[in-house]
């Protein structure tokens, strides 16, 4: 979180309408993404989370409305500008199967920058190290990676050009708890160290409550955006419908424990 800087809007969606057949998924949806935040997007299956993310990325043309990236329509950005502005992690990684992991990360650098080859390689190696992959994994082909490593490699590729906004599509889905935990920590770490704004679509309550600064819940074609604790206490219909059941109770309990620990740690630090 960048409390020191004034909150500026880095991306915003204005009046997005998406219809598939007779089904209206987004109905005049507005969403502002603040620079430096981690914004979660959640909602039931079929509520249009992924479509919203693809709309933000400019991969999907909405029936009405527009997405502004730094005040300009995302569709009007030149390809290279867009590559420098946003990076995307696709749900299944979408790593190029014929290239090694390291080559996957080097590809955008090779195409878009004028760096020397050894500089490209060093930069790619850094991105992979940031994503938590060791040298051995970098020489592998995507098919030889485990699920968690695939996500990390794809994340490193999304980071290749130091984008200002990182769009993540279900980064922890299909991972075991410890791998998912690792990805959660990584998102937080990247956000803090690189200052990258992160938009993450997820079903994972842990990610929503422990990583995100704000969460946007999709309901009835609109979004309800608030901080996780506020949402948990919210009385709004759409939010209550999504955030109910035993899983949410567990997440709530875990969160209260974590906040207690955090305050305890803070007190300890203050005593020193």
């Amino acid at each position, binding site marked *: 979180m960048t409390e020191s800087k004034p909150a500026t809007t880095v991306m915003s969606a204005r009046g997005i309408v998406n219809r598939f057949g007779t089904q209206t998924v987004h109905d005049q949806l507005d969403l502002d993404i603040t620079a430096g935040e981690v914004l979660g997007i959640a909602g039931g299956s079929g509520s249009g989370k992924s479509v919203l993310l693809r709309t933000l990325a400019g991969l999907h043309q909405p029936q009405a409305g527009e997405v502004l990236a730094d005040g300009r329509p995302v569709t009007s950005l030149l390809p290279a500008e867009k590559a420098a502005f946003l990076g995307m992690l696709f749900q299944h990684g979408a790593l190029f199967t014929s290239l090694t992991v390291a080559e996957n990360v080097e590809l955008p650098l090779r195409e878009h920058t004028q760096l020397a080859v050894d500089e490209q390689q*060093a930069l790619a190696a850094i991105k992979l190290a940031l994503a938590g992959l060791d040298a051995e994994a970098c*020489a592998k082909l995507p098919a030889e990676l485990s699920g968690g490593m695939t996500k990390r490699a794809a994340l490193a590729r999304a980071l290749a050009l*130091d984008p200002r906004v990182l769009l993540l599509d279900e980064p922890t889905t299909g991972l075991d708890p410890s791998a998912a935990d690792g990805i959660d920590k990584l998102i937080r770490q990247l956000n803090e160290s690189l200052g990258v704004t992160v938009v993450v679509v997820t079903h994972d309550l842990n990610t929503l409550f422990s990583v995100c600064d704000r969460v946007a819940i999709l309901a009835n074609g609109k979004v309800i955006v608030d901080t996780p604790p506020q949402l948990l206490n919210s009385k709004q219909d759409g939010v209550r419908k999504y955030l109910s059941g035993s899983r949410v109770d567990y997440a709530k309990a875990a969160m209260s424990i974590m906040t207690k620990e955090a305050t305890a740690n803070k007190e300890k630090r203050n005593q020193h």
Partner: protein
Amino acid sequence: MTAIALPLPSSSLTVTVAGDRAVLKGNLDVTTVTEAKHALASVPKQNKINVDLSGLTDLDTAGSLLLCAWQTRGFTLAGLSDDHRRLVDLIASLDQTRPKVAARTHGWREFFIDVGRAGTRMLADTVEFISFCGKAAAAIGKLLLHPGSLRLSAIAHHITETGVKALPIVGLLAVMISIVLAYQGVAQLRAFGAQDLTINLVAISVLRDMAVLITATLVAGRSGAAFAAEIGVMQAGEEVDAIKIMGLDPMQLLVVPRLIALVITLPLLTFFADVMGLAGNAVVSQVLLNISPAQYVQRVRVAVDNSDMFVGLIKAPVFAVFIALVGCMHGLKVTGSAESVGVETTRAVVKSIFLVIVLDALFSIFFEKVGL
């Protein structure tokens, strides 16, 4: 390497070097890092420069990498903001070496290695195909013991797909081939005044060889590929494993119906190609040789023996067995990825066309020896 796509929107950076001091102002990012590097590249090795970075507005990882390099050279980085300092420290703590990929062997050695690999693979493939044929035979044997488990609806479906839907293209190709043969025949035989024998030439070669060869090649490309791709997608999506876990046999369920369907359709398609080829020949005879259809039928009756058609048709079910088995085998060889569906489909088509032509050659020798 220079950028192929549009260059990134560049940001501005000013570098001023004066004696032992360098001042950087503006954005040090991936677009300006080369510029900054060059500006300080001319500094002699022993000089230690004091780099003033208080005017730096933006710093990304590429810029941090350069700052790290300067730091290791002994430059002093002054005036870095806390945020930037943290980033530089983070980058400095990471491993910057690219993993070494094992060097490839080059030149003439590679050629021999490839030949050797191809040889062992061919051997393995042959063994595999023979064992697959064995499994298919066992499945057919089981079916004969329990005829009730014959999946008629699946067979009917595959007959439609591989047979009925292939009729137009098979017919068209048969006509075309007979036209090609007829034109060549007339051109060559006219020199001897024997151009009327073109009818015999075309009729016999269509019935004995061309019809079945063209049909089998087409079916190998069309249905062999379809078998490999259909089963391959099921294999990739773990559907084949689901079949096994339910206690069912993929051979019974997937391979046998396709095999039976193709053994039924390929002879029928060949017969259809025979008819169309002869019809094409009739048209060409009318046009080139002025022989009326009635005369044409008369001549064909004299020229062609029953055995000619039999020789052509008997090959069709044999080809069908090979095409179906090769297609299904490669479909079942697919591993998890979508990429391997493409690889196996290609292999199935190449191998089945190859086998069809080799078998046809063997048949020709065989029929010659037995005098048919």
